[in-house]
């Protein structure tokens, strides 16, 4: 058991997978000589050479599509998209091609590949570099979308993604790279499609993923000090979505707050709220609340950016309001 950063967990897992399977190779912008925009691939070019760590031109559609084609012939590319914002340049290859190869041709081929990419705002990167658009991919049958929030999950889900024979969008987050956590040395792969209960509780259910799952556990711990028992669910997988785990929790607690970094309208939280309505309608004591980003192109100026993004404070407030609505006594 070691305490390492999310970044280190990704790096170490990539390295191990490359050592164990020569069909695994890395492809993306600035991943080799530059060692990765966020240094996830540091040292790997030196260790594995240009064949296994392939720097690309700035051509997302071209290199993502090339990875799909290589995967169709049995290689296992791990694509790094510098941020999820740039994945839009490759949308056709991800949505119209990677996601369709297996089904459209009747199961004759498939595209076993991992698309690693960070989302996240809060770095004063402005409107085009701060988006959380994982919904675009979570919407598409044929893709799998996972979103680890801790170093241990990063490791377990990356192993699972590389073992999977389908294209997996692996959502990272700029704000998580430096976070630390315990990672067991012999950690087995996670199961894609399964959510995790990261705090058990009985008063309220808080549901989040990626950065907001970690914020949710912080908030739950704060509330715990006041005697409020919050259950926290980390989705981990956005497609498939583990509705059973969500609904089971809300049936127990009777109320829920969803924490998401994306925009509210049509966002991931909307699907979760609908699922709770589908599966726990009779158990609800209050409307399902969503804490989500303000619906603006994210401004650069710090006070505006801060106002637009969800935080522990805003989640804490929404949880308290929901508990008040339920008539929870504290």
């Amino acid at each position, binding site marked *: 058991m070691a305490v390492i950063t999310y970044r280190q967990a990704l790096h170490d897992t990539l390295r191990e997978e490359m050592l164990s399977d020569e069909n695994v*190779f890395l492809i993306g912008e600035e991943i080799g000589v530059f060692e990765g925009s966020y240094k996830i691939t540091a040292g790997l070019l030196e260790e594995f050479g240009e*064949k296994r760590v392939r720097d*690309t*031109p700035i*051509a997302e*559609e*071209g*290199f*993502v*599509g*090339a*990875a*799909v*084609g*290589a*995967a*169709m*012939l*049995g*290689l296992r590319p791990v694509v790094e998209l510098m941020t999820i914002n740039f994945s839009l340049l490759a949308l*056709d*290859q991800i949505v*119209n*091609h990677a996601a369709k*190869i*297996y*089904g*459209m*041709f*009747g*199961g*004759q*081929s*498939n595209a*076993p590949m991992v698309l690693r990419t960070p989302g996240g705002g809060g770095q004063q990167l402005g409107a085009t570099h701060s988006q959380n658009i994982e919904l675009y991919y979570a919407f598409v*049958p*044929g893709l*799998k979308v996972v979103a680890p929030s801790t170093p241990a999950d990063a490791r377990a889900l990356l192993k699972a993604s590389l*073992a*999977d*024979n*389908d294209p997996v969008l692996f959502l990272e987050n700029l704000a998580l790279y430096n976070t630390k956590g315990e990672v067991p040395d012999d950690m087995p792969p996670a*199961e*894609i*499609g*399964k959510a995790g209960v990261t705090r058990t509780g009985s008063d309220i259910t808080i549901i989040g993923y990626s950065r907001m799952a970690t914020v949710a556990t912080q908030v739950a711990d704060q509330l715990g000090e006041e005697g409020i028992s919050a259950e926290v669910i980390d989705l981990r*997988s956005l497609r*498939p*979505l*583990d*509705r*059973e785990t969500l*609904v089971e929790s809300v049936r127990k607690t009777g109320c829920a707050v969803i924490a998401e970094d994306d925009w509210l309208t049509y966002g991931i939280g909307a699907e979760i709220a*609908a*699922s709770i309505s*589908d*599966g726990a309608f009779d158990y609800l004591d209050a409307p399902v609340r969503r804490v989500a980003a303000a619906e603006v192109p994210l401004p650069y100026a710090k006070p505006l950016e801060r106002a637009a993004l969800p935080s522990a404070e805003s989640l804490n407030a929404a949880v308290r309001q929901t508990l008040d609505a339920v008539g929870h006594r504290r």
Partner: protein
Amino acid sequence: MAETATRSKPAGSGSKGRRGGTRSGGSRGQQSQGKTAPRAESPETLRDYFRQMSLIRRFEERAAQGYTQAKVGGYCHLNLGEEATVVGLMSALRRSDYLFTNYREHGYAIAKGIEPGKVMAELYGRTTGTSKGLGGSMHMFDTEVGLLGGYGIVGGQIPLATGAALAIDYRGGDEVVMCQMGDGTTNIGAFHESMNIAALWNLPVVFVVINNYLGMGTTVEMSSAESELYKRAVAYRMHGERVDGNDVVAVQEAAGRLVEHARKTGEPAMLEAVSHRMKGHSVVDPAKYRNSEDAEAAREADPVAAFREQLISADVLDEDGAAEIERAVQADVDAAVAFADDSPHPDPATLFDYTYATPVANDSRRLPADPVF
């Protein structure tokens, strides 16, 4: 002379005497119809080219018929008028070589080696089709013969083909990838990105542009600042050349030379085949935007009729021999239609069988009216 644009010519390039027409000057579509037998190929090979071209012609006519009978759904784009190009290109590939195409690929599927019955069954949406009926006209696929997909999104196949070539290079294999596309495709970003990557990484892929002058109803001149499309290869320091797509032998020669060069050196290349689309963009398109002169030129350039005449003139075939081949391909197509018609429709119970290659927890199997819980 064949027109070439190159940084370093593959051996023997530019040495052939056929030319594709340029759009200006009215030379488009003219083809040599010499009285002598086309060079090099054996009479058997030439007769087989004629057989394949006739088969594709007859197949496509029956596909159109199936469409009007509502046996075939969706879009249905035909290779009518492009038979010489299709057969020439496919004759340049080994069975182990890979082919990526656009959505106008029925003829390619057949010429790459798929049974016409499987191709027709795909059009009919049956389980015996090339993609089990899940793909349709635009999405034929067969691992056995190396057809790695017809693709309905213009340009979508180009990055994929480049990636397949990357996989070959990665493993040190000796296969070559051919990536077919239409003239309109050369204006999409994926074309540029992939040509650059293929040249940069020295990948064994031959990009083939079928210039039939029309991207749906938009002419090459309306869409392309450089309308001599093969010249675009120069921007990537890639060899490019143009060939008369109505001349099956010239196409086979040019494509074969570029494919073998790619096999030997890993260098990519671009080939522009100047061809004709005899009908509309798809079966339902009456092509009213075409002027009568252009439509007439397309009819006159009929590569199947011209090749038949050429082989008879050169005593490679006689009238009876030609008629015998035509009867045989008619029987092949009749059998393909019967096979398709007799094949089962997919069972709705199999709807969720091909969403994921690796089964996954909580995968949705909900039908439209099913409750979520």
